[in-house]
């Protein structure tokens, strides 16, 4: 039994967000050290503001300014902050109802320990020194026990802030950390490739040979185990000529991207065709793999010099 492979897989992308009028005013406001909410038809003030009334679905555009002080409505202690979180040291996640608001905002509270946090405690915004128009313009909240909750007067706000350019979009980087394992069948396939052998698996029911193997036949739904070595030679069943350079791939264009049915396999795998001018590649071309030192996969496939395969021999593999 070969070892089942495993490796980290990081998926990350800087997504962009168009904000729309309400979030635009909210984030522009934070940059100007002002917290804006939105007022519903029945007089409730929602902070953070939303574009549409959760109760009635009506459009909400009536912006109001609320205080930078408020009351913790509930909390959870976070003993070990992870990357990208608001504070580097242990902190409390808090829901804060700002004075003048009817709903609570999620943020971080800088507190020495869980004993220093309680529902009902008074807090205030700690503004970031450099503000860009993002929720992180509120660096965090901090205790403000001396500030009694008083009847706070909200004031109407246009959502405009003088000559300053409004924030209309943000970049929201996302990152997911996975541990990826290709499983038993593909691990065996990859181990065999390191010895420059291509090994698929035959379905015990339909007898088709799958390369790469997946440990199960997708049509019969049964486990596959019988190993079958295929290739190394094969036939180009179809292809395209790629004229656009892919990001992160060190291949000069144009190049040929081919579907190659290795001898003995019942479906084609994909690979680059080289060793022949791109405009001379054709369906039925007989090819063999070209390996480079240390390569996990064949670098490309090149013509064997054999006569082309007859269309009838591979048309079922298209």
């Amino acid at each position: 039994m070969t070892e089942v492979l495993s490796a980290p897989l990081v998926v990350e992308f800087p997504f962009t967000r168009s904000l729309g009028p309400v979030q635009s005013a909210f984030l522009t406001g934070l940059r100007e050290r002002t917290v804006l909410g939105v007022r519903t038809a029945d007089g409730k003030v929602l902070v953070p503001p939303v574009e549409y009334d959760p109760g009635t679905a009506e459009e909400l555009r009536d912006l109001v300014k609320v205080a930078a002080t408020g009351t913790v409505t509930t909390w959870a202690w976070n003993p070990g902050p992870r990357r990208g979180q608001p504070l580097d040291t242990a902190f409390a996640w808090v829901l804060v109802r700002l004075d003048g608001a009817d709903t609570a905002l999620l943020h971080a509270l800088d507190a020495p320990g869980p004993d220093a946090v309680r529902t009902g405690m008074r807090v205030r915004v700690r503004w970031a020194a450099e503000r860009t128009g993002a929720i992180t313009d509120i660096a965090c909240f901090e205790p403000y026990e001396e500030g009694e909750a008083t009847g706070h007067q909200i004031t109407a706000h246009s959502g405009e802030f003088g000559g300053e350019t409004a924030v209309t979009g943000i970049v929201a980087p996302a990152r997911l950390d996975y541990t990826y394992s290709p499983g038993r069948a593909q691990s065996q396939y990859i181990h065999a490739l390191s010895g420059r052998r291509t090994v698929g698996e035959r379905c015990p029911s339909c007898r088709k040979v799958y390369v790469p193997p997946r440990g199960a036949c997708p049509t019969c739904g049964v486990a596959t185990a019988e190993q079958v070595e295929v290739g190394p030679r094969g036939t180009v069943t179809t292809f395209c000529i790629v004229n656009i350079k892919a990001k992160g791939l060190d291949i000069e264009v144009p190049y040929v991207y081919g579907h190659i049915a290795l001898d003995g396999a019942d479906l084609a795998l994909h690979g680059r065709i080289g060793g022949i001018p791109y405009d001379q590649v054709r369906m039925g071309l007989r090819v063999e793999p070209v390996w480079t030192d240390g390569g996990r996969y064949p670098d490309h496939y090149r013509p064997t010099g054999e006569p082309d395969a007859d269309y009838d021999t591979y048309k079922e593999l298209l």
Partner: protein
Amino acid sequence: MSNAPRPSGKEPVAVVGIGQTKHVAARRDVSIAGLVREAARRALLDAELTWADIDAVVIGKAPDFFEGVMMPELYLADALGAVGKPMLRVHTAGSVGGSTALVAANLVAGRVHGTVLTLAFEKQSESNAMWGLSLPVPFQQPLLAGAGGFFAPHIRAYMRRTGAPDTVGSLVAYKDRRNALKNPFAHLHEHDITLEKVQAAPMLWDPVRYSETCPSSDGACAMILTDRAGAARAPRPPAWMHGGAMRSEPTMFAGKDFVSPQAGKDCAADVYRQAGITDPRREIDAVEMYVPFSWYEPMWLENLGFAAEGEGWKLTESGVTELDGDLPVNMSGGVLSANPIGASGMIRFAEAALQVRGQAGEHQVAGARRALGHAYGGGSQFFSMWLVGTEPPTT
């Protein structure tokens, strides 16, 4: 609970409201919520209904990686008036707009709900679909070619199998881009389009030219589906659903026919059986099919039974699929003229409905009584279709 016996059979399903946004490369002026709201409002306006008239919301979009919002339906409940109502999200890759409409239609047909809002969207400008479709998987060779590179070899296989002349693809693109000029919601409005320009465009993934690929769009499409009672109250003529089906198959398996997938044939056959269609070429007046690369028009014409195997390109070449042809295809300009991916399938369904309602404006096919809406997705593995008509179904 009433003790009255429930009527037997399915409830007829009618489309009484349709709304689309103007599809564009980037809608930087609205949030995702604002985008879907715009389409939904237009559908409500068309049906002369309010949020309170809607019993449930069924929403669809393509993979979450396309905008990077996990489960966007959760935050869109407010914008779509779904608070306190059932809200479902459907996901079947590029065919999702079609399957979303069918899930909504089945809720009406099964008498679970009387009136359902269904909506699909994509805001492609917030991410990069090419990135979203080619995440680097450890131990695997990186994909060498992207989405066009995935489909181009299958197009070459079609050309080899049928002996179609090289020019057919450019004819499709030229037709669809001209049709788009008659559709105010289409993304691409190429007023100076000529066949020569289409053919002079560079090959991206030979045999696929730049001019023969779909654009990347932001957009949303919404429909209001209702029962017989709802249709009777509708201010404008409804489109009636005569058949609808979905089929799927694995992305890759030994024996898969990428040129004409079995799941697509089976899906079409099911729809025609429900609708009592025996000769689709003669009995269907107009088709909106999912053609992201021009050559997929002749390929789907065969897969959907409008032409015998190997003959689809002849319909295209002889002008049958032109707006004034015998079997117009993609009167709206199709996916080649607007591709907000998650919404693209629903736009096909909605455009088919617009035709039989007589509401398609400048791209209306005169006298269209039966129209097919078609969508596919993934590696040609998900299919969804519906057939709509002017008259209520008789069975």
